[in-house]
């Protein structure tokens, strides 16, 4: 029997990964951002209904407890910042159940960093610097920043902030995506996910970094609402060559609002018969005690390596993808 013991990636790509991680560490050391580690295995997990998590059993006889593999280090890192750590970064594994494909592996490497005192604009400037260092001239175009509304309008002619069911249906029928009508129904957020990933994202960041900011409020996640326009939130996504590379927020600080968003997501989980989760009270308490004003972003290191090496599948940059892990 042929046993597939060999790595998925080339030895050359192992070196590229090591070099890239070294470059990232130097970048943050130069800027005095502290490297931290937080647990991969936690007692709480995010409530996001779009993220499926891994559950493990923790045996401590006579008791037994569920522990979860983190989908992102966000909550633990915010607790460190609330405790006075200042600006921090982390390179760690994150786990998302059921996600596998050309751009997905259920276990992947994430770079996440938080800048105390930065708003979204300042964070976007730092992202541009980091991408510039890592790609070292490999990107020919200039970085562009576009609002979600602007970019959605450009490629679909639809207003992302003003949901008109009939217009969205007419667009999908006219553009060979009739299935969108039954998949998305009357749910604005699903429509945005569908049309953005099919009709907008493929055009973003052709040989350059494209940052899309000002996400519609229905896709707020953990971002704070814009001060001047409640229809949008302070969230940014990064794209290069049509690949989603990262996601950042001007972080929500309000404990009550955070708690409310968790409750909403827990309710959606119940509606959809998804595994139930408990609200992370430790994060809520940290917010209550005071999370300093900060912005944070997470970047997928494996996808970054795909772009740096012109790989067409995430397997080409992983030592062992899940199929032979």
């Amino acid at each position, binding site marked *: 029997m042929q046993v597939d013991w060999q790595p998925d990636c080339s030895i050359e790509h192992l070196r590229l990964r090591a070099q890239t991680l070294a470059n990232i560490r130097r970048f943050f050391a130069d800027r005095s951002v502290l490297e931290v580690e937080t647990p991969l295995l936690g007692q709480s997990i995010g409530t996001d209904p779009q993220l499926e998590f891994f559950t493990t059993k923790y045996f401590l006889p006579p008791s037994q407890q569920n522990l979860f593999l983190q989908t992102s280090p966000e909550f633990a890192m915010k607790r460190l910042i609330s405790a006075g750590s200042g600006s921090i970064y982390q390179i760690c594994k994150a786990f998302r159940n059921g996600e596998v494909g050309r*751009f997905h592996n259920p276990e992947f490497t994430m770079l996440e960093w938080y800048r105390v005192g930065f708003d979204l604009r300042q964070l976007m400037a730092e992202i541009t610097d980091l991408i510039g260092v890592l790609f070292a001239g490999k990107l020919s175009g200039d970085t562009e920043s576009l609002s979600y509304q602007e970019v959605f309008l450009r490629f679909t002619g639809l207003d992302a902030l003003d949901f008109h069911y009939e217009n969205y249906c007419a667009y999908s029928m006219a553009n060979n995506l009739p299935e969108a009508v039954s998949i998305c129904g009357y749910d604005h957020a699903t429509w945005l996910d569908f049309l953005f990933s099919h009709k907008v994202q493929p055009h973003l960041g052709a040989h350059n970094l494209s940052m899309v900011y000002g996400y519609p409020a229905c896709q707020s996640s953990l971002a704070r609402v814009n001060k001047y326009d409640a229809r949008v939130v302070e969230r940014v996504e990064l794209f290069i060559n049509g690949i989603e590379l990262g996601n950042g927020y001007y972080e929500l600080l309000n404990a009550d609002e955070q708690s409310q968003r968790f409750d909403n997501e827990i309710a959606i989980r119940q509606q959809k018969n998804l595994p139930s989760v408990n609200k992370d009270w430790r994060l809520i308490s940290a917010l209550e005690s005071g999370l300093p004003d900060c912005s944070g972003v997470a970047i997928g290191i494996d996808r970054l390596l795909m772009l740096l090496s012109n790989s067409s599948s995430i397997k080409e940059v992983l030592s062992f993808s899940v199929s032979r892990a």
Partner: protein
Amino acid sequence: MAIYSTNEFKAGLKVMLDNDPCAIIENEFVKPGKGQAFNRVKIRNLKTGRVIERTFKSGESLEGADVVDVEMQYLYNDGSFRHFMVLDTFEQYQTDEKVVGDAGRWLKDQDMCTVTLWNDAPLAVTPANFVDLNIVETDPGVRGDTSGGGGKPAKLDTGAVVRVPLFVQQGELIKVDTRTGEYVSRVKE
């Protein structure tokens, strides 16, 4: 029939879509980091041969289609139907020109081909990749021309017309690639 979820959509899987049997060609998992997961699937309608793209919500499922490819010998054309036989079992199938389609111009009596069956009825016919056919009609070429440049049309015994080099003559047996409809070489009998 079995039910297949989007995670099981592998190239070659036969499923029912819009009441037609289809084959999965490609399945791409598409998921915004903070959004709904989709599967963008390239799929061939086995009745029409048309390839379409269709998106599914991840976790949706389709019913499998009872579609199998069977090696058969092409027997003859009775004027309204073509007849095929499975050599092992002597089981015979007949089908009209609509199902045979373009494959008809490459089918010579006694040749082997692939017949795709859906619920045990012929759905499509695929000729062998290379077939040897006789030239029944072509203009005399220029003697001494072996360059193969240019070429001329030649009518074959199945009715197909292909371009052949000038030196190839009427009555000769030639090998043709049925996927491209192009002349490959002369065949020595």
